[in-house]
């Protein structure tokens, strides 16, 4: 029983990690309807930016996080300004932008490898990790930080999208951007804001996760963005809270499954769940009925 409890705690940690990535990914999807796969590249690059500030130049933890956030936000909004917005203006569908996004992911990932090398590097803030013990269950301060931040962020974004003008405007934009512009919304600016915030969040996530794992490498974003996609779809598209919920569910399933299934099958299991959800519950577990997603 205590083994299962430990798996559940690991599941909550993993779920929070997926939720963190899925939140920014879903925020961007909500505003632009683009599956922004390059988000995985932004995640990787921001971790290395944080690494450079924290480990290479020894500027401290705050500077590490700031570097990650600023780099992520700038790269994220640049991708929107230079690629997605012109495509949208040219009448190209978000689907083609999604294919383009794979190209951006490849470029960022391999440029990172060219600059920082293709071997993993140690990301550590120095000092000791505090381990907490609750009965038979173990957890660390970095893990608690991830869980807390994911929960706070999910709640904040939920309130933002439900009760604040800007959030409601961004949702409206995602549902029908032409209509949003007709009623006088600054559509372009709203999308830019979404890319800045969504990417900035992934910068924080990259540092939290990097510090928890202890090492970072140029490939770290690829698996994470695939899991964020799975999380967003099983949670429910076009709904940020649902994406976070999907992340939690995915993390829990993966870790409780370790009880019966070897961990090497986690990836396959996650995608099997994705395909089942796509076929039988296309609105996701927590999504509303929403034909606007095109399913």
């Amino acid at each position, binding site marked *: 029983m205590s083994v299962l409890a430990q798996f559940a705690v690991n599941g909550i940690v993993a779920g929070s990690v997926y939720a963190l990535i899925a939140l920014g990914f879903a925020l961007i999807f909500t505003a632009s309807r683009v599956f922004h796969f390059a988000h995985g590249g932004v995640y990787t690059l921001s971790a290395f930016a944080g690494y450079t500030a924290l480990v290479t130049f020894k500027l401290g933890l705050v500077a590490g996080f700031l570097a990650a956030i600023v780099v992520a936000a700038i790269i994220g909004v640049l991708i929107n300004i230079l690629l997605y917005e*012109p495509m949208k203006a040219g009448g190209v569908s978000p689907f*083609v932008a999604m294919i383009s996004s794979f*190209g*951006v992911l490849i470029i960022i990932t391999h440029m990172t490898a060219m600059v920082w090398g*293709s071997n993993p590097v140690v990301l550590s803030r120095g000092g000791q990790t505090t381990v907490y013990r609750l009965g038979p269950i173990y957890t660390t301060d970095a893990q608690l930080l991830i869980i807390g931040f994911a929960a706070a962020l999910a709640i904040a974004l939920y309130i933002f999208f439900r009760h604040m003008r800007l959030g409601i405007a961004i949702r409206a934009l995602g549902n029908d951007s032409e209509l949003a512009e007709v009623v006088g919304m600054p559509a372009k600016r709203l999308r830019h804001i979404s890319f800045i915030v969504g990417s900035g969040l992934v910068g924080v996530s990259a540092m939290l996760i990097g510090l928890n794992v202890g090492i970072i490498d140029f490939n770290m974003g690829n698996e994470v963005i*695939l899991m964020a996609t799975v999380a967003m779809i099983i949670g429910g598209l076009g709904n940020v809270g649902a994406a976070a919920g999907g992340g939690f569910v995915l993390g829990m399933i993966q870790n409780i499954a370790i009880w019966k299934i070897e961990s090497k*099958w986690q990836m396959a299991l996650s*995608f099997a769940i*994705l395909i089942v959800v796509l076929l039988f519950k296309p609105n996701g577990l927590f999504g509303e009925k929403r034909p606007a997603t*095109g399913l």
Partner: protein
Amino acid sequence: MEYFIYIGTLIAIYATLTISLNLLVGYTGLISIAQAAIYGVGAYTTALLALHVTNDLLISFLCASATGVLVSLIIALPSLRLKNEYFLIATMGFQAIIFSLFMNLEITGGASGLYGIPHPTLFGHTIRTPLEKFFVALALAVVCYLLALRITNAPFGRLLRAVREDQTAVASLGKSVFRIKFSVFVFSAVFAAAAGTIYVYSLTAIDPVAFALDESIFIITLVIVGGTGSLNGSLLAAALLILLPEAFKFLAIPDAIAPQLRQVLYGVLLVFFTRYRRQGLIGEYRDVLK
């Protein structure tokens, strides 16, 4: 000299893969990123057959295509019910699942793959030299090209394009859109799997990384760069994109960053063509990627 022959074989393999995927992407409007998985299924079938049963080339082609078709059925049946982004993501899911099988099953040799695969035989003659293997690869590419040409010019080809342009119209004429998509998916799988046979016999080994998601994205890149809906474009793109990074070898680019630079180049091409030239180098149908 042997090096150039090997490059030639590689171009023939990618030409086959690109043409087979172009039938899906360019003619039918189905953007699948599971092509590398099907290619891998053909390769593993061939390798296991050669290691344990027979290395006869024709039997290898036959069995690889058969398993390729089987797997494509498993992918197509659920995925074809989805549209656009969701079709792509479902095929991506299958790509990830199949790649995970390659990497983790015992029979596929896990992450180290399979090696020591014998040379193939054809009518009792052992195909040993790289030049002979190049001609086998070339023959497959030519057969694939001619069949694709025949299909796309036949009435069935018009039907494919009609599905791409307006599914509802096709359905309203009493044609089964699902069956049309399904047939082209299976046809595409036959050649992708056969390309896997060539891969195995030209390397006499398997590295699972050759069938990862990146590879599927690379094949999509070839289709888009050449031009969706253009078979000649696919040939051109396969030749250009395989040859281009080889130029790095002559530009004295350090070995440590050459493979990274190659990927960056492919990424830049994918972004450039989806952004500025969606009809590709010599494609005529600008509307495929709309």
